[in-house]
């Protein structure tokens, strides 16, 4: 069974496990400029994302309250980590790249400027083997984009 455990590690890399168990950003921010909820009714995952902005409009800090699986919590935490300091437009571009990554396992056409943060998100690429779990990984991003857009609820599909 040792190679099965190897398989498990493949998908649930230590990094993911660590972020899901001890999320650094897993809290409601004391002060925030925007927030939005995301809901994956198919599996009961639920996340609320809080965003504080810098005066220049870039993201100062992101926090979240999540109830969900290891993948969604880790995805939320890694997201919070990688979007800090980015403009909303950058964040959107990063989400597009991330979505490609978790849907197909790679993002060959991704702009080089995005390589570094995408690298950071790469541990989640294994999710592409489980199409129904892709939503777990993208749910916090949908909520974040909704918050940036000023709506209260993410409309994921």
């Amino acid at each position, binding site marked *: 069974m040792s190679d099965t455990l190897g398989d498990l590690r493949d998908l649930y890399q230590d990094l993911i496990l660590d972020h899901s168990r001890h999320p650094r950003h897993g809290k409601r921010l004391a002060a925030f400029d925007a927030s939005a909820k995301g*809901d994956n*009714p*198919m*599996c009961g995952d639920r996340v609320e994302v809080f965003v504080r902005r810098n005066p220049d409009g870039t993201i100062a800090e992101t926090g979240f309250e999540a109830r969900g699986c290891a993948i969604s919590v880790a995805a939320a935490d890694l997201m919070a980590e990688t979007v800090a300091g980015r403009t909303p437009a950058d964040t959107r571009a990063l989400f597009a790249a991330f979505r490609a990554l978790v849907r197909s396992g790679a993002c060959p056409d991704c702009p080089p400027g995005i390589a570094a943060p995408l690298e950071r998100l790469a541990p989640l690429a294994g999710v592409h083997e*489980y*199409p*129904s*779990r892709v939503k777990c990984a993208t749910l916090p991003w949908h909520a974040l984009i909704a918050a940036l857009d000023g709506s209260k609820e993410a409309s994921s*599909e």
Partner: protein
Amino acid sequence: MNDAPYPLDLAAIRADFPILARTVRGKPLVFLDSAASAQKPRAVIRAMTEAMETQYANVHRGLHWMSERTTEAYEAARDAAAQLMNAPDRHEIVFVRNSTEALNLVAHSYGRHLLRPGQAVVISAMEHHSNIIPWQLLRDERGIELRVAPITDAGELDMAALEALLADGKVGLVSITHMSNVLGTYTNPARIAALAHAHGALAMFDGSQAIVHRAVDVQAMGADFYAWTGHKLYGPTGIGVLWARRELLEAMPPFLGGGEMISSVTYERSTWAAVPHKFEAGTPAILEGIGLKAAIDYVRAIGYPAIAAHEAALTEHALARLAEIPGLTVLGAAQDRGGVVSFTLDRAHAHDIATLLDRFGIAVRAGHHCAEPLMHRFGVESTARASFGLYTTTGEIDALAEALLRVREFFA
């Protein structure tokens, strides 16, 4: 017919349909009942068999390999159906059991909730019961008027009369066949939709017969709803398609309630999943979706230009051969007509004709073809009907014509 190479390789196509090798009553099967339901190519049979043998589980929400793969295969049918109709959005494809359910879904969800008493629905005088009864039930339950656009003696939709029916602006929905299953008449959905829209009505088309023979482009025709049924398009029974514009689907309340169609449930209040799932309650026809995908792929590989040309050639040949039979009367004479030919023969009753033809191994349908009001329109109780599929040959039509001569003799 001209000298151009024949549009499709009939021998190869016939070899794709195992059932065509059968004999019936000791004679080769001549299956001229495709408009009722078409035979299935090996690709469809294989797709369903392989799913059951190698890759099957319930779809959606399953997180294991079998369920993920089955979901992909099933959802691929949605993509295929969207492409087939040139639907702008795969989420506009709602899987139902058959055309009948598609029409009822619209009558229930759109008709009972978005039409108001005092509004009207227009159908035509050549509809299948499945495009009559749902509106009658709606009328009787909700006080929605039902208007019937007449057809000409040639069996064509009377467009002037249709326009007159729309004139008072009370019509909310026009629901008309794209091809008559009795007369073979093709209607002109683009013109009908334009007329409907000009008078503030939506346009729905019953494509059960048309999509079997002709490319359907719901965007080009400006349709609002389009319904068809898998088993006539060489696919399995148990699956059909309702296409509707997304904003309509979003405005419509769900029809059936249950698993798969919800977003969240409490006893007080439930919310619905996004379209199309809102309309797909319960475990869907998974294997049938997989079979339908194979059928669509099969049809697209042959291509509608060839299919339509073949249909035209067969129809021309059939009308010519049947015209040679004394006492035989073909119903309708539309300019634009396809591979469905209904007829009466002297004093012979349609049922007797069908039974006698069966002794020759020839399968035709007899009766009112689920279109009683149309029978009355033409002053008959029933007709015999020969209908063609992409595997039909002119030789089979010749066999029909010869057998009909014998039937006629027999009853002389």
